[in-house]
């Protein structure tokens, strides 16, 4: 090794968004907003079990919100964009952080859901796009007819196609895994950790994720089973 001394070259430090910590805080907050949406959306959707009149009235109510609907959509789109831009940038950075990999590497402490955030996220994204085209825009409605305004009909017709339901169920299981890690991780990212509450939160995250997934997939299962038609 040479004897040259590495001089301390001062550089301007990375700012909030350039720092990994800042990006993670943004991911946590946008993730939390998306999480609230996921819960709200579930509660709305479960009205399918109350029959066509109730669900279609709910659909009309949302469409009659006018500007408010667009504000909510705007916030959600902004959250999705920020969440994904941070994902892509952190992913690129993490790839570079270990240029030479290991011959043998074992995981000792993390779960499958923890390690697959960078898989579950993008698959959920692909699903959300498909889902919006199918049920909101109505541009994709394989093997079924899309009737604008008749939400109930569209849901039943859409889910009667087995592979549409299968893709929906698969994606929601991944969303559940995403949330199983995300629900507690977002607290950690904004600096909240408590010796007593955090272990409870981790357990709760598992159950909340299971409940959300079960709630959503109960709909295609009920359609396929013929309980909702």
């Amino acid at each position: 090794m040479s004897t040259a001394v590495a001089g301390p070259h001062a550089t301007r430090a990375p700012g909030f968004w350039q720092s990994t910590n800042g990006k993670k805080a943004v991911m946590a907050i946008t993730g939390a907003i998306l999480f609230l949406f996921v819960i709200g959306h579930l509660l709305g959707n479960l009205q399918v079990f109350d029959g066509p009149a109730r669900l279609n009235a709910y659909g009309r109510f949302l469409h009659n919100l006018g500007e408010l609907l667009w504000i909510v959509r705007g916030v959600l789109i902004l959250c999705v964009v920020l969440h994904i831009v941070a994902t892509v940038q952190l992913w690129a950075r993490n790839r570079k952080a270990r240029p030479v990999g290991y011959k043998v590497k074992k995981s000792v402490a993390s779960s499958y859901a923890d390690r697959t955030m960078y898989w579950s996220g993008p698959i959920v994204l692909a699903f959300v796009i498909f889902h919006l085209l199918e049920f909101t825009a109505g541009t994709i409605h394989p093997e079924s007819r899309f009737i604008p305004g008749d939400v109930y009909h569209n849901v039943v017709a859409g889910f009667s196609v087995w592979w549409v339901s299968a893709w929906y169920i698969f994606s929601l299981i991944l969303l559940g895994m995403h949330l199983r890690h995300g629900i507690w991780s977002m607290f950690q990212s904004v600096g909240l950790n408590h010796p007593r509450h955090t272990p409870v939160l981790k357990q709760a995250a598992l159950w909340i994720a299971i409940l959300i997934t079960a709630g959503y997939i109960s709909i295609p299962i009920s359609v396929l089973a013929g309980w909702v038609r």
Partner: protein
Amino acid sequence: MKLTLTIWRQRNPGSRGKFVSYPMNDVNPEMSMLECLDVLNESLIERGEEPVAFEHDCREGICGSCGFMVSGIAHGPEPATTVCQLTMRHFKDGDELVLEPWRSRSFPFLKDLVVDRRSFDRIIQAGGYISVSTGSPQDGNDIPVGKEVADRAMDAAACIGCGACVAACPNGSAALFTGAKIAHLGILPQGKPEQDRRAVRMVAQMNTEGFGSCTNIGECTGVCPKEIPLEVIAKMNHDYLAGAWKERHKVVTAITPVTDWELAKK
């Protein structure tokens, strides 16, 4: 007992490395991993071969010099143990152990199992201290510290800077180390006055080095020989977010990471 050590051999950063297998026939189960390498090195020297380079100093698990991957786990399979404290009785007769150096962009490779961890020094330099005026010391009892507070600070202060957390992290993040260094001072009253500045500057240096970002999965705590808890990462995030807001008008600088041989090449 019989063991096969498959070790990463590379003379210097510029040369090509490869794994070389060394069968060992008379390993004493009471030896530590490092003593096992000592025995191997003696036989290598007798045969006129280059001994395996590895870092060590205290050999009692407190200095943080030693560390490499043992069959895919930083510091080997025993929890809360450094390789200098890892005794061979934990392995079975006939096992093959794969020894690899820490792999991280911010730990440039030096030789065999040795990497350059000065990125950690630069993070500490950026704020991992408290400023105290010289003169006669204040009476210790002047600053009351609760037992729980002292315990939390002590748990974080146990970090020996070995680098296993970075090595084990799939993202190559130094969050556990930096968190431990920010937390052990920030928790105590003596560290409070400089808390904002410390968190902002140490996080800035951490991000200037090439470390990855934390995904809160906890591989680091799993291999940490001092079992530093994930709580310190939340503490770092907390102090950083608060500090970044309070110190938003200040210009923060960091040190560009440069290694000796990169400079020498120029």
